[in-house]
C-alpha cells in the first residue's frame, strides 16, 4: 500500500498550506563523504535551503577539505549550524563513535526533520580485473566502507533521532553501475547493488520513513578523473574521456541542487531510484 506523503496530500488538495520538509522546519542533516566532490556539493546545497536553526553535520576523511566544506556551507547561511566530523568509514569502529560524539553536541528534540545522506564511497581499485581481487582484507575494507557503514550508520541515525519524534528521510547515493555491469568496476557494481537492495528492503519494512536512492549522473569529480586514468580497460577509460570531451559530465553542484529539490518536493515514492536526468 502506498503511504501518501503529507506533501502529496496537500498538493492534491490544491497546494494550500503545503510545507515541504525544509520550509520553516528545523532540520538535522548528516552528510557522509563531505570533504569533497558530491558530498560537499550536497552540504552546500542543503545549507542554501534548510530553515534557520537547522544543523548540518558533515563527515569526511580529510580534515582540511572538511574545513573548506564548512566555510562554503556557512557562506550560504549564517543562521544554521555546521559541524564537521573526521572519520574513516572503512573502519567498523567509526559508525559507533560518530554518534557517541554527536550526542554531546546535538539534541534531536531541537529539530523537526532528520535527513541522512549516505554519500561516502569509493570506486575500488579499477586497475584490477574481477579475478585479481584476491586479498580478503582489501575486500572486507571495501565492503565495510561502501555497504556496511551506510547500513549501520542509517540504523544508528534512526536510533539517535528517535527521541525527537522527527520526520525522517534517508538518501542513498547510487549510480548506473548498480544495474549496469561495467568492466574494472566489479566491486563498485557489487557494492552499489547491495546498497540499493538494502534500501529497497528498508523502504518496504518502514513505511513511515522516506527513502530515496538518488543517482546523481556521471559527475565531474576527482573520482571520475581517477577512473579515466587508472582503469585497466581501454574502453572504460575512453568512455569517460568521451563523456568529458562531450560535456556530458555533470557539475556536482547542479546535481546536488537537483537532489535537494527532490527532497523539498518530497513527491518520490519511498524506495524509488531517481536519476538526475529524469525531469
Amino acid at each position, binding site marked *: 500500500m502506498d503511504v501518501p506523503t503529507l506533501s502529496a496530500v496537500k498538493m492534491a488538495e490544491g497546494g494550500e498550506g503545503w510545507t515541504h520538509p525544509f520550509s520553516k522546519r528545523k532540520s538535522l542533516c548528516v552528510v557522509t563523504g563531505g570533504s569533497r566532490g558530491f558530498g560537499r556539493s550536497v552540504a552546500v546545497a542543503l545549507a542554501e535551503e534548510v530553515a534557520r536553526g537547522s544543523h548540518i553535520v558533515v563527515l569526511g576523511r580529510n580534515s582540511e577539505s572538511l574545513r573548506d566544506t564548512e566555510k562554503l556551507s556557512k557562506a550560504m547561511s549564517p543562521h544554521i549550524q555546521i559541524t564537521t566530523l573526521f572519520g574513516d568509514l572503512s573502519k567498523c569502529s567509526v559508525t559507533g563513535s560518530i554518534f557517541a560524539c554527536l550526542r554531546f553536541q546535538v539534541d534531536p528534540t531541537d529539530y523537526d526533520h532528520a535527513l541522512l545522506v549516505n554519500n561516502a564511497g569509493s570506486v575500488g581499485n579499477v586497475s584490477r580485473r574481477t579475478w585479481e581481487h584476491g586479498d580478503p582484507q582489501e575486500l572486507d575494507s571495501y565492503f565495510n566502507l561502501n555497504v556496511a557503514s551506510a547500513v549501520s550508520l542509517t540504523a544508528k541515525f534512526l536510533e539517535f533521532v528517535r527521541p525527537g519524534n522527527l520526520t525522517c528521510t534517508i538518501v542513498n547515493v547510487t549510480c548506473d553501475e548498480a544495474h549496469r555491469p561495467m568492466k574494472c568496476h566489479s566491486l563498485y557494481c557489487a557494492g552499489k547493488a*547491495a546498497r*540499493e*537492495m538494502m534500501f529497497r528492503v528498508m523502504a518496504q519494512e518502514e513505511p513511515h520513513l522516506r527513502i530515496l536512492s538518488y543517482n546523481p549522473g556521471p559527475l565531474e569529480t576527482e573520482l571520475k578523473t581517477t577512473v579515466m586514468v587508472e582503469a585497466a580497460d581501454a574502453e572504460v577509460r575512453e568512455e569517460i574521456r568521451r563523456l568529458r570531451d562531450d560535456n556530458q559530465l555533470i557539475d556536482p553542484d547542479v546535481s546536488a541542487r537537483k537532489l535537494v529539490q527532490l527532497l523539498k518536493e518530497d513527491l518520490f515514492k519511498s524506495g524509488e531510484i531517481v536519476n538526475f536526468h529524469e525531469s
Partner: protein
Amino acid sequence: ATFCAVTGGSRGLGRSIAVQLAGRLGEGSRLVLTGRSLQGLQETKRLVEEKCPNQLEVRLVTGDMQDPTAYPTLFSEIFANTPGNNAMMIHNAGTLGDLSKKAAEHSDPQILNKYYATNLTSAIALTAKFMEVFSGTSVRRTVVNISSGTAIEPLEHHSLYCSGKAARNMFFKVMAEEEPDVRVLSYSPGPMVTDMYYTIKSCGVKKVEDGCRVMESQGLIQNPDDSAKHLLILLEEDKFKSGAFLDVF
C-alpha cells in the same frame, strides 16, 4: 577430466549438486567439497561414491567462510594438485543472516562485516584463486553463482540475504563481461526443502512464516535434488549467455 569445487557441500543444495555431478564429471575427475561440518561432508561423499563407485576422487575441505584470515589455507587445500582440462567452481555456500532484524535495525557494523565476508568476500576471493590456478584459456572454465529471486525482488526481513545476492549477481555479471572465455552463470534454485528453508519458516516473524505456508500450499517448495538436476541440465546444454541470471522455473 574435470575439476569441480562446490562450497557448502555438507547439506542442502550443495549436497544435491554434488550427487548430481557424480557420474557426469568423467573418469579421473576430482570433486572438492567444502563446508563447516566434516560429518555432513562425509555423508555427501558417501552418497556420491555410492552413485558412482571408483570413478572420481572426492576431496573434503572443512572451513568457515566467515573468517577471511583462514582463506589462504582453505583455498590452498581446495586447489592442491589440480588435474584436468575442465574446471568448475560452484559458489553455493551461503547464510541468511539474522531474520529477526529489519534493515533499519542492523546497527552493528561487525555483524554486517561478518555477513558480507561469508556471503560476498569469500566468493570473490575464491574466484580469484580459482582463476589464478586455472589461468590461460586451454582449460575450459565455468563459474556458477548460486543466487536467489531475492537478488532482484526485495523481501522483508531478508535485507542481508537480498543485498548479498544482489551484490554477487552484479559481480559475476562484470566478470562475464571481462572474461568472455569463462562461462559464468547465476542460478536461482527456487525455494527448497532444506535446513535454510526451515530456518526461514521458524524465524519467529509472522509475515515471513505465513509466506512460507502460502508457498507450501501452492506446492512451490521443491526437493533440492530437482533444482540441482535443472542446474546441471543448464550447464550441460551450455546455451546460457555468460553472466545471465536464470532460475529453476
